[in-house]
């Protein structure tokens, strides 16, 4: 399974995502410069965290116009797996690949901590290896993770099982319905504020992130077997 990690000016978790794929899956993974628009050679895309274009204007707003986003759009349409982490999630929202928008954390501070989450939907390519309703711990690190969508969108998300992760305990940013991560209707595009790639080794404080990556691989292997 070949992974692409697009690098925007200001991305800073690109290397972490690459390390995690190598560490957990041992699969080929490549950094792709934002000027490149052809992602056909990849099976999955991970949009990394960071501050693309300084997060100026709005988080993710300037990055979405990078050529590489054409490739991401196409890959999403082809049903390939797209994972947006933190800033990557924000880019997916701005690009319209996921519904809703991001606001500043309600307490107005940047927040870095290890947070408890519940896996709300374990039938997705990204969550196969979790149990339904399982409590897990992922680190967060963001100033704008206060997810917003209108009522109508929210009920649609709920009804379709598109809310993938929710904060349990304290909501660290004020997001609507304690949302930490959502997917598209088809289930092949996931965006989340917490950082699974920061929770893959014993000394990191949690290893719960590993299974997000192993799920992706298992899903892909299953699909390729059929094909």
């Amino acid at each position, binding site marked *: 399974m070949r992974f692409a990690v697009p690098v925007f*000016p*200001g991305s800073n978790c690109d290397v972490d995502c690459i390390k995690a794929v190598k560490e957990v899956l041992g699969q080929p993974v490549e950094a792709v410069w934002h000027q490149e628009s052809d992602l056909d050679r990849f099976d999955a895309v991970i949009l990394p965290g960071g501050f693309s274009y*300084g997060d100026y204007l709005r988080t993710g707003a300037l990055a979405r116009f990078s050529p590489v986003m054409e490739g991401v759009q196409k890959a999403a349409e082809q049903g390939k797996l797209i994972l947006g982490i933190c800033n990557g999630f924000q880019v997916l929202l701005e690009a319209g690949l996921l519904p809703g928008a991001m606001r500043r954390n309600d307490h107005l501070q*940047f927040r870095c901590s290890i947070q408890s989450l519940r896996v709300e939907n374990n039938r997705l390519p990204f969550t196969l290896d979790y149990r339904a309703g399982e409590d897990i711990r992922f680190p967060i*690190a963001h100033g704008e993770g206060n997810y917003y969508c209108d009522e109508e969108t929210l009920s649609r998300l709920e009804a379709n099982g598109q809310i993938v992760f929710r904060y349990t305990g304290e909501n660290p940013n004020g997001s609507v319905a304690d949302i930490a991560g959502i997917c598209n209707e088809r289930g092949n595009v996931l965006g989340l504020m917490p950082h699974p790639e920061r929770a893959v080794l014993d000394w990191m404080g949690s290893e719960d992130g590993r299974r997000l990556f192993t799920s992706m691989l298992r899903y892909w292997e299953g699909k390729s077997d059929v094909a």
Partner: protein
Amino acid sequence: MLPEQTTTVWEPSPEKIQAEGLYRDMGMTDEEFEQVIGHLGRLPNWTEVGIYSVMWSEHCSYKNSKPLLRRFPVEGPHVLQGPGEGAGALDIGNNQAVVFKVESHNHPTAVEPFQGAATGVGGIIRDVFSMGARPVALLNSLRFGTLDSPRVRYLFEQAVAGIAHYGNVVGIPTVGGEVEFDRRYEENPLVNAMCVGIVDHDKLQKGVASGIGNPVIYVGSSTGRDGIHGATFASEELGEDSEEKRPAVQAGDPFMEKLLLEACLELVEKGILIGIQDMGAAGLTCSSAEMAAKGGTGIEMDLDQVPQREKGMTPYEIMLSESQERMLLVVEEGRQDEVRQVLDKWNLPSAVVGRVTGDGRLRLRHGGEIVADIPVNTLVDDAPVYHREQREPAYYRENASARPEEALADQNPAQVLRKVLGSLNVASKRWVYQQYDHMVRTNTAVRPGSDAAVVMLEGTDKALAMCTDGNGRYVYLNPREGGAIAVAEAARNVVCSGARPLGITDCLNFGNPEKPEGFWQLAQAVEGMSEACRFLETPVVGGNVSLYNETRGEAILPTPVVGMVGLIESREHITTQDFRQEGDVLLLLGETRAELGGSVLEQVVTGELSGRPPRLDLEKEKKLQEAVLAAIRQGKVRSAHDLSSGGLAVALAESGFANGLGAEVELDTELAPALFLFSESQSRVLLSVDPQQAEAVQELIASHGIPCRPIGRVAGDRLQIQVNGQQVIDETVAALKAIWEGALPCAMNPSSTN
């Protein structure tokens, strides 16, 4: 479109500058002005006076502190680069070096806390990557007034937000630091930022201009009028007119910094650079002059080529601007295009602004005319040096007879423990560090909250431990002892996390050196630090001096800050302060005496600062550190915590917080319970060890000649302490933790009810 000129330019003639003494406004003395005339053999013009005044400011020339800094040990088997470059470098094996430095941004923070603190972080990051190193961690050391003042809350909140913002955007984890509050920092807060980087030996860069005819390339943000005379500003007392100097504050762009960082490291990787230096204090002036001086060359620049943000900037303004996120590069003639390609890829503005020359002069052109022509060595090597007068202050003599220990002996331990844990100098700093991304780059093995932070060295089994430490109260009471303690405590913190201390960087935050009492404090502190560094074999490989930290004649507490780096040989050795297992045996290493001068207990109970600080026996300190490290390396230690602020009682409580574990402790002592529990005697460490190993560890420690006694065990969810058979403390860990965790958020949000 460039914004219209915002100030009218009025440049007095050389004769007028001399006749009216206008150089004094730039912080230059009459004698210094005479020296400039001597060096030039004529009267300097306005631009030249500006250049001399910033180059000869304390910030750039260390004219007051140089004779003292020579006392620091700067050599050792691991030293690859001592003081003198952007940052120091120490060998850590595998052909790798650790590069690190601390720097102050005190005055800018007092004036504009968010940008002031943020640009402090930006500057220190550039210092590290200008050495060719990839920055892997940030730390800081902060001092503010007490939080009952809304102004101080504003300053503190904004400074922390600024530090957080800059590091978070660039994507370097902020893994540690320290914060203290004292009313003596009310008008003059301290913001010291430290950056740690990693580089392969052969990639280590220098800020040097060599090769006559080679191009000098400017890269990064365009030059604006911000921060003009920042270096001079940093070298003056903050007075009533600091408000007027406000334009001297720069705004930072961490996004630009990230691009600059990646582009410069790409150039380093390609091996194209001959010299690289960041434009920090005194901007283009300092970087060009220093690079030429180090290369034994000259530099000629055409200021019209310098990318500018505002219209109509004068040579004076261009040379003295402290606009952020700018670097100066020297490359081999003919390789400009290669450089250009990399810089363009990162979308960075750049321009060839000059050439290296062979005549040893800094020559500047503007509008086709020569506007400055100065022998480089007179700017760098011939800066004045002052041997200031020292005088032992009266307070120091008077304190000799003060005995805070007597007044504090009969305090109730349970009551004061609550007070101490809820006092802001001991309370959890989570409110601060949860605003810092401390995990980006996924190498942070020990996050903020333990004695030292630990960052993994990718691709090896090793790790780096690092911390910052300072104690203005001890240093005030006895600068020599206090200076030594700052080094010893930093080393102890690093040892407790499983590392061998390698070396330090330091920032000397003091008052006005022209006052003999102030200079005495500085000299004594440097003496104490030097002695400790020599003893502990931790050379000083870089640092920074920030003097004139005074407002209306009142100085801050003298505050040398030590940034220490240590090497952990195997990740198996990584140790934290947290209790891990019920039943583990608690061992107290070192001797406890009645020593409470400058302690937290004194501060909390009496609010005074009196007596003498704890004594430090460097011989014992070294043995203690060797003993602890040996025990850790043998895999026999579950947790290690050095005893510092608040002594044993605080160490016991803190060690239990992370995992909600209590302890049952029994102590026999001749001291009053409060004295024993809150004494801040040095060279002490608390270990928890597997009961099976307890005896072996005791023997090992004793073989190093260090007293070691079992004082109880990790147990339950209460902290229970008996002294001489009497229960003096019995509290749930949860209740103590609530006090400790709640104090800072509550102080920052005084109107909230929760």
